[in-house]
């Protein structure tokens, strides 16, 4: 496998007393797309929270391009090139579209040329460009999702985490979002895509991890799983 862009190694995490992640290990290779699947409450978003530093890992380790970031604050992890498109989008509602993007702007971690800025984000999502001065609260769900993706890209990340970007969107918009993800992957970005729906992930992912009740149930190359989805039902619920 390529070098690891992001790894969780034997991570245990708790909300208060409830043990939510148990010895979770997963790896997203450089330039690869890791699909993270699991049913409601399996612990997918918790993995994201641990990765970006919002929830401390009680045991285990998180590394970004080999560097240990387990104990770092969210701001510091962001500076190491990790960006998140959070579940539920969580755009800054009292900011305009443009402000949502500029507050997250950052030069690339490796000091290279900034691939993402206002112009390139607006070129990718023309509708955001048209609404740049609007309050972001007034955007449609699909537009808010694009804004959340654009905001994450403004940081010029090396690893992009996307937590259920298709949630609550019309099929046509979901297709647009998936096309965007494909495009980003083709540009060489390392991506972790969290989904509940395996159909969306199987043909773009390189690897798949399935969580079940806070534990890793399956880790496999996506190619191995594409044909025999039947035996995954027990982990994913019925689709």
């Amino acid at each position, binding site marked *: 496998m390529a070098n690891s862009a992001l790894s969780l190694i034997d991570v245990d995490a708790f909300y208060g007393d409830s043990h939510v992640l148990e010895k979770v290990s997963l790896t997203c290779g450089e330039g690869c797309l890791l699909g993270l699947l699991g049913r409601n409450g399996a612990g997918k978003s918790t993995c994201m929270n641990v990765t970006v530093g919002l929830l401390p890992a009680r045991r285990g380790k998180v590394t970004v391009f080999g560097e240990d970031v387990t104990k770092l604050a*969210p701001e510091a992890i962001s500076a190491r090139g990790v960006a998140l498109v959070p579940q539920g989008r969580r755009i800054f509602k009292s900011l305009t579209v443009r402000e949502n993007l500029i507050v997250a702007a950052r030069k690339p971690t490796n000091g290279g040329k900034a691939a993402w800025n206002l112009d390139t984000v607006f070129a990718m999502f023309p509708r955001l460009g048209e609404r740049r001065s609007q309050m972001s609260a007034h955007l449609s769900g699909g537009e808010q999702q694009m804004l959340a993706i654009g905001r994450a890209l403004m940081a010029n990340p090396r690893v992009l985490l996307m937590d259920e970007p298709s949630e609550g969107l019309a099929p046509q918009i979901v297709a647009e979002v998936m096309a965007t993800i494909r495009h980003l992957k083709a540009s060489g970005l390392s991506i972790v895509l969290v989904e509940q729906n395996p159909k969306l992930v199987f043909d773009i992912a390189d690897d798949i991890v399935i969580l079940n009740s806070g534990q890793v149930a399956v880790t496999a190359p996506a190619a191995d799983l594409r044909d025999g989805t039947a035996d995954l039902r027990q982990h994913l619920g019925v689709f």
Partner: protein
Amino acid sequence: MLRYIGFEEARLLAISSFAYGGLLFLLSSGFSLIFGLMRIPNLMHGSFFMLGAYFGVSMLEKGLTTDALKAIPKIGGAFNFLPSFTILPPNFFLIAIISGLLVAGIGALVERYLLRRLNGQELPQVLLTLGLSFVIADLCLMIWTGDPWQPATPAELRGVVQFGTLFFPLYRVAIIGIAVVIAVALWLMVDWTRLGAMIRAGVDDPQIARVCGIKVSQLFTLVFALGAGLAAFGGVVGAPYLSVYPGLDADMLPLALIVVILGGTGSLLGALVGSFLIGLLYNFGQAMVPDLSYVILFLPMLLVLVLRPQGLFGRSIP
């Protein structure tokens, strides 16, 4: 009970009202930012005002000299090792700015090391800031004694200015000008700069803001320090007018509260309009119905609380 006033008196009262309103804005804009953005009910805001005023008048006496530092009762001995020289000349606005910076530093320490521990807990925040205001009041009494202290109006601001056929006291006009300039600067900063957008993002969703790389904690310290510094600056600018005395803090704090309730929390425009409104009510109320001047001051606040709880310009808090 009602006393009638003539045009000339009304004109002077009006200019005093706006000058007083300008001071109130310097006091309450910071209070409004701190409460509106960080949800901290900062009951030591009057103390920042008074502390700034005391720092200012002490330095105004002879400028800031090392001899003056050595003469501070009880703690002055710590400066004995310094040779005698003048650190700052007694320039009024320079000293107002320095006092603002000093108190901003104190505010930053209070926020970072005390208030930060009480994140989101309003009652403990009220108790802490109220307690600190008592501590500061006592320390001021110890250092500056109980005598009121009124510095002279700065020499360059004595005299009058002429608008058309009317003459106005220059110093009061200057206070109004300063308040308006600061209001515009604050508005530009909060609403039109990246820094302001980052602060608002940190208010909207602190967790995601941090994940986006925004140093929310530092920004909040900055906002608190800015509010404290503005109040202190206002304290110095207002000293030739209000004078400085024990209890100035407790006199000013309720005024900041009324202004912010009237104008709406977190709204700078609200703080500006509220300040001028309270300035007018206070001055005209005292001149025309002296027996009821406090009723006139607090009645509008009660009406606003009942009829429009978010304040005249406040956004209703979701």
